[in-house]
């Protein structure tokens, strides 16, 4: 297939999968088989796209023109392909995990769940392939809306309230600052095409560009830059597989990916690097530290992971704001590494919940004995997110430090060091409590073993394999990171690798 067909397939295949899921909803086994087949097909399609990518021959594909100049256009480029690869690669694993989790929880409305999941992947692919800011905006909005049913899945009062918050934050930011910034760009530059080197240089003064960059940074609410991060913890009312894929991979990564795209192809890396991004550096660094500190105070495992996500996403925003090829490279790697690390952690938190019906740090003392493999994966995920070798998460942190010191931002170097310590500080205690504490220790409310109302279910194999695989992936990515950097290097003007 030609690259155009592959791009269309990547978007239409999940869409077709969603339709088939809706049609086969009556028999769960066929429905799940459809999901897995769709995920496998998408993974192959994206692999073909990446393997066959050639910057010299990549041609845009115009689908429709909503308004003159506001066109829906697709164009493959390295950063987008990396994002597509991450999302497509993790969909299959996540679907396996979903099957284990949703069946163990006897969840209602599973057909809607799998269908919306497939739709979300379709939107994520459209974001990844977007050739204009207009296309990206359209797909971004679609992603918000199709994930709403996933967040509200349990349809309890709490879930409706959480989902309302999710939607309010994401729609409000996208309809006012994001759309406003897009219009401003459109009128100032006369185009919305993603162009290497940017389209805004010389069209606006540096002061206005700073304002525009801030509008984008806050307009892209999915990047969860503080203080507009409130939707992310609120969205944790969703079933854990949703939190895992959407809030470690598709939704939040779509946010920071959008920022990366805007930095590289709308502003131009050099433009941001010459001072336009300086205000954003301060905000993003503060966001990293503040979110990490808040994460330490959270007892609920998913809330802790949510704030950890806020901190780690701010790291990508930081990379965008520093504005050097090296920093952008670090941002792209962070997008990949954090996705694999954080999805491991979410898988782990969900598996703990299935196996023990416990959701809080203070309740999980001693469960590690029963779940040794799971907790080992959890530790790997934690260390990778924190940025320790030999796990993939080390690379972005390392490159970010390099980029910061190359611009003589020594305070920022200190911030990054502190953030790694804080990350260890809020993630490792989960492992330590689960493995080294005795049940009941420090927990006055602990019940004697076997006294739970519903009893401890065994952990389904389908809920155990995915976290082990993603944890292994964190190790593999440690080796594969230079290859990813080489892949994106031409697009971001990165010369020799450090």
């Amino acid at each position, binding site marked *: 297939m030609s690259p155009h067909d592959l791009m269309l397939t990547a978007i239409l295949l999940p869409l077709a999968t969603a339709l088939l899921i809706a049609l086969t909803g009556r028999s769960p086994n066929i429905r799940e088989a459809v999901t897995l087949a769709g995920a496998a097909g998408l993974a192959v399609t994206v692999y073909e796209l990446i393997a066959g990518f050639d910057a010299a021959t990549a041609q845009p594909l115009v689908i*429709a023109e*909503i308004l003159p100049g506001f066109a829906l256009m697709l164009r493959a480029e390295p950063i987008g392909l990396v994002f597509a690869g991450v999302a497509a690669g993790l969909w299959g694993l996540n679907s396996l995990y979903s099957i284990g989790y949703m069946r163990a929880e006897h969840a209602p409305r599973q057909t809607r769940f799998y269908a919306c999941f497939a739709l979300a992947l379709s939107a994520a692919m459209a974001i990844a392939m977007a050739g204009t800011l207009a296309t990206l905006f359209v797909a971004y*909005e679609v992603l918000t809306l199709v994930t709403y049913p996933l967040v509200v899945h349990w349809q309890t009062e709490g879930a409706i309230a959480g989902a*309302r918050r999710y939607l309010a934050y994401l729609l409000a930011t996208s309809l*006012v600052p994001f*759309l*406003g910034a897009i219009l401003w760009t459109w009128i100032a530059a006369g185009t919305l095409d993603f162009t290497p080197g940017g389209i805004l240089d010389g069209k606006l003064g540096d002061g206005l560009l700073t304002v525009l960059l801030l509008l984008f940074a806050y307009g892209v609410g999915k990047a969860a830059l503080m203080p507009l991060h409130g939707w992310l913890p609120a969205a944790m009312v969703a079933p854990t597989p949703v939190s895992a894929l959407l809030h470690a991979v598709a939704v939040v990564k779509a946010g920071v990916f959008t920022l990366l795209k805007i930095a590289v192809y709308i502003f131009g890396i050099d433009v941001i690097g010459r001072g336009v991004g300086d205000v954003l550096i301060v905000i993003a660094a503060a966001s990293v530290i503040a979110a990490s500190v808040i994460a330490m105070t959270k007892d609920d495992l998913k809330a802790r992971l949510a704030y950890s996500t806020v901190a780690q996403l701010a790291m990508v925003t930081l990379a965008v704001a520093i504005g050097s090829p090296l920093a952008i490279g670090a941002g792209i790697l962070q997008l990949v590494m954090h996705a694999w690390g954080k999805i491991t952690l979410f898988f782990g938190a969900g598996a703990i919940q299935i196996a023990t019906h416990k959701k809080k740090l203070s309740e999980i003392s001693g469960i590690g004995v029963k779940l040794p493999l799971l907790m080992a994966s959890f530790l790997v995920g934690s260390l990778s997110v924190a940025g320790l070798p030999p796990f993939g998460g080390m690379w972005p942190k390392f490159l970010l430090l390099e980029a910061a010191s190359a611009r003589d931002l020594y305070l920022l170097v200190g911030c990054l060091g502190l953030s790694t310590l804080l990350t260890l500080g809020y993630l490792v205690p989960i492992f330590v409590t689960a493995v080294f504490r005795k049940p009941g220790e420090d927990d006055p409310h602990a019940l004697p073993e076997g006294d739970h109302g519903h009893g401890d279910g065994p952990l389904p194999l389908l809920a155990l394999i995915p976290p082990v695989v993603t944890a292994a992936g964190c190790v593999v990515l440690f080796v594969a990171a230079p290859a990813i950097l080489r892949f994106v290097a031409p697009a971001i003007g990165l010369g020799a690798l450090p």
Partner: protein
Amino acid sequence: MIAQHAAVLVVVLPLLCAPLVALLRDARIAGAAVLIIAALDAALATLLLCQTLDGTVISYALGNWAPPIGIEYRIDLLAAAMACLLSYAATLVALFLPVSLRGTIAPGDQPRLFAAFLLCLAGLVGIVVTGDIFNVFVFLEISSLSTYVLIAMGAGADRRALTAAFDYLVLGATGATFFVIGIAFLYVVTGTLNMADLGERMATAPKRAVIVGSSFIFVGIALKAAMLPLHRWMPNAYAYAPAGIGTFLAMTATKVSIYLLIRMSDFVFDTPGEIGRVNFAALLPPIGLAMLVAGSVIAVTTKDLRRLLAYSSIANLGLMLVALGLGGIAGIAAALVNLFNHAIIKGGMFATTAAVLHRRGTTRMDALAGLSRDMPVAFGFLVLGGLALIGVPLTAGFVSKLLVVKLAFEQANWLVVGGVMLTSLITVAYVWRIVEAGMAAPAKTAPRHDLHPAFLLPVGLLGAATIGLGIWSEPMLTLAGRIAAQMIGGAP
């Protein structure tokens, strides 16, 4: 022959058929007759659109009395497009009107309601095709009188329809009076009622009389267009009229007033800078913004879905006025795109609401509980319409809003930019009230039937158009652009 006389047939057909339909005994035959007549009317309007698409203006002298002495039917692209909108709306509504009336109006009374419906259609089409300003008044009265009757007929389902009809009767009659007084002033100083002729003679007419006359006309139209603060009649009229009628009114009634505003802006209103004329265009953005904000805010607080949609319509009318006020070809084009798109979006939502009303007997917000489970198709279309109202991309609403905001951006009119974008957020709030109401835990007694099949075609077509025009907006933009160019270029 038909092609030659289409200009007049498009009005005469429903007008003459109305009394015949009233005489029919069987409600089912009458319902089918209305559908056929409306569809024929739509075909005639389409024919007119085809004839005027290249920019020709059809001038039809009634009774062969040459204008400006006789009455002239003057059909340019704007008139033809409006006639299409009106007759298509009537056809779609006629598809489900008999079903939606079942149980609320006795079969024996239904033929009379159908007759009033046809009269209303004839009146509205008459307003847009005529080139004679007094004739506009006559048709305005025909459509208004029949509308009063139609609204009052909702009393079978809800007695509040009577007060709604009375409110509209008082305010509508006031509006019509203002309008005719305005015409009288202009007639006295120009000696003509033909609009094209009027435009030519206005330049030399005594200025004070022109100011007074055009002010009267403006207020009259403002009442009919439900401009703030003259909007009081509108929410109740939409909410308590029989369900199908509410849909028809939402798609047409206020749109025709916007049409009049555009039509008369050529020669009665809007000549900024010219001494002796009043610059009504300058009034429109502030009024429009106020409607946008007030309509949206009140919509958040309403307790009934149909009232919510009606207040949302006030907000959307505000958006059209804002676009008109921005002026120029682009402004008129943006207003027209908004007008057509909103008719489609809101028509779809009202039709879906009629389907819900037909199943549940009420449209109170708290009675929508369980809609997502019991009537998933209807719920889906309501959500689709709601998303379009918010202005989510890939829906027609996005195109409408983006046109206005971009235009205001280019003119550096930050008040309009900010106002339109921020009210989108209020729109999110009231649209999500519908979504959450539909998702609430259902009452055990709620029936589990989805849309009645009669609603499927109109709701489906309007829904498809909502998405279709959101992706392939080019035909609509071209049409609106051509109309606007003709209006500005063809100004006398």
